């Protein structure tokens, strides 16, 4: 059995105001404070398009390799729902602003984008019980009404749930890099509906749409669940109806929301209150030229020009804040190899452990540079360096201060170390015998013993040298 997956993605644009009125585009405001006659559908109120929405939509379309249309237009999608006071959503149905784009996955597979269009968001509802079907009443907040969205529709080019997840992650990284959206799925700034069907040589299932997927992990989980469910039904000879299902993250399963028969009839027609949208060739060209370096290009540059390991380059190029930080560290004089290893393995590790997003100011570049330098010159041990870094992250203190306070300076003075080395050798006559019998690998054991006694402060290179000298001298 093979599956076919297509995605419909909605992205909130981070403009200052809504799409068709001058209300603030602010998702976390007090309920029903950012509303006006236009976004609440008062009679006679007229929409006026926000120019920044056009700018952002074109930027996204250019970054996603789309054909951008100089002429596009708006339409009304009609339906009744309490979160839609106008009774229709303004969207671009007949003539979208962009078509025919793509994103390339890491395995080289091209996932085509059918279209990108501008539209407006609906309000937000709070239901009186866990599920909407059980709710006896709901509360409506209209702040979200009219917040600008772009909808991105892919071709059904994905075969595996992990491809869908990778597509979504790449899309988020691109949207963030070009600064048009926060791309945050958990907060609803990026939302994804998935269409999936399953087939083999002989038969093919109906297409099922899965809604309410609210994290990157769940894109994959929901599709895995759904493909398994459809496959099982087909193998049992059951009919798979064409329907819309909702992902329920608490039960990790999908539930039927509505069947094809109850599918809405939206009666699209051209929005009479908005003239045709014309953007000049010059503007499109200007936007294309102004695009920043995108994550995949950046990753390639890090590998080819800076010699960064591919897996590190991929991580560093995802977020603009992180890549800028990395490049600043390199500019400050740290080698790209050291900078990438330290940032990916150590710095990000600290943020991940706390479940936080990377924030450069928590680990000032000059502090990180010092820690790396001190480690490279054996002023402090690698272990001590990690301790210092963790403290910088926690308190923002200067590394010098931390090293002094905690007495972490590495001891590489042979005179100071030789006594400890002698002590360890005397305490382990059996191991000394092994060395004399030719098992030279036990040197590491002695070095470890010295490190323990000095609480990690001894320079292991110097200790190793001393251990060998003493052992060889004894024989």
């Amino acid at each position, binding site marked *: 059995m093979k599956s076919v997956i297509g995605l419909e993605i909605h992205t909130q644009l981070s403009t200052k105001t809504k799409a068709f009125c*001058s209300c603030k585009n602010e998702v976390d405001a007090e309920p*029903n404070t950012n509303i006006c006659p236009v976004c609440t559908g008062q009679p006679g109120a007229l929409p006026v398009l926000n*120019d920044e929405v056009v700018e952002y939509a074109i930027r996204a379309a250019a970054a996603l390799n789309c054909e951008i249309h100089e002429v596009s237009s708006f339409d009304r999608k009609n339906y009744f729902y309490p979160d839609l006071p106008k009774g229709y959503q303004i969207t671009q149905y007949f003539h979208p602003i962009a078509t025919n784009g793509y994103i390339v996955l890491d395995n080289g597979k091209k996932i085509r984008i059918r279209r990108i269009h501008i539209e407006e968001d609906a309000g937000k509802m709070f239901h009186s019980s866990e599920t909407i079907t059980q709710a006896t009443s709901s509360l409506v907040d209209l702040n979200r009404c009219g917040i600008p969205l772009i909808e991105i529709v892919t071709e059904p080019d994905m075969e595996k749930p992990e491809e869908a997840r990778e597509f979504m992650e790449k899309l988020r990284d691109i949207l963030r890099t070009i600064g048009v959206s926060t791309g945050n799925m958990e907060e609803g700034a990026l939302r994804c509906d998935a269409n999936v069907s399953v087939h083999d040589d002989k038969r093919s299932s109906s297409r099922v749409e899965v809604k309410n997927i609210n994290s990157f992990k769940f894109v994959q989980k929901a599709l895995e669940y759904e493909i398994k469910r459809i496959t099982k039904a087909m193998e049992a000879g059951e009919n798979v109806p064409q329907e819309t299902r909702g992902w329920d993250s608490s039960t990790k399963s999908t539930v039927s929301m509505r069947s094809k028969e109850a599918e809405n009839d939206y009666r699209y027609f051209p929005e009479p209150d908005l003239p045709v949208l014309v953007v000049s060739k010059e503007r499109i060209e200007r936007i294309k030229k102004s695009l920043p370096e995108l994550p995949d290009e950046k990753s390639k540059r890090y590998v080819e020009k800076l010699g960064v390991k591919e897996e590190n380059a991929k991580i560093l190029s995802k977020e603009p804040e992180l890549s800028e930080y990395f490049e600043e560290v390199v500019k400050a004089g740290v080698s790209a190899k050291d900078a990438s290893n330290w940032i990916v393995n150590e710095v990000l590790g600290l943020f991940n452990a706390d479940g936080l997003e990377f924030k450069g100011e928590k680990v000032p570049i000059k502090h990180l540079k010092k820690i790396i330098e001190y480690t490279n010159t054996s002023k402090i041990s690698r272990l001590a360096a990690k301790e210092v870094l963790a403290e910088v992250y926690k308190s923002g203190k200067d590394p010098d201060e931390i090293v002094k306070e905690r007495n972490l300076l590495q001891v590489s003075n042979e005179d100071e170390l030789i006594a400890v080395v002698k002590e360890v050798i005397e305490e382990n006559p059996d191991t000394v015998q092994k060395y004399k019998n030719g098992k030279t690998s036990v040197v590491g054991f002695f070095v470890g013993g010295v490190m323990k006694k000095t609480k990690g402060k001894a320079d292991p290179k110097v200790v190793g040298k001393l251990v060998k000298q003493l052992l060889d001298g004894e024989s």
Partner: protein
Amino acid sequence: MEITNELIEHLENLAKIKLEDNEVERIKRDMEDILNYMKLLAEVNVDGYDAMRSPVEVKMEPREDRPIPFDSSKILKEAPKLENNLIPVSSIHAK
């Protein structure tokens, strides 16, 4: 296009209204009349004309992305009831 009872029922559902039998008959007649009237358009020869998107030659004049506050209480006072500044509505799916 024939206006059938099924079509009227579909439109009733979409418009969230319920029509009486006599109203259904009247609406069917009205809609047939409207559609027949629109058929006149099909008689016009439009060869050589580009499709028209709007009867007026107006270009979109987008606005600047600058917030202008509006006193939301003017709108909220029209709501029959408010709960913590949210607008309560009755059940949507529950029967």
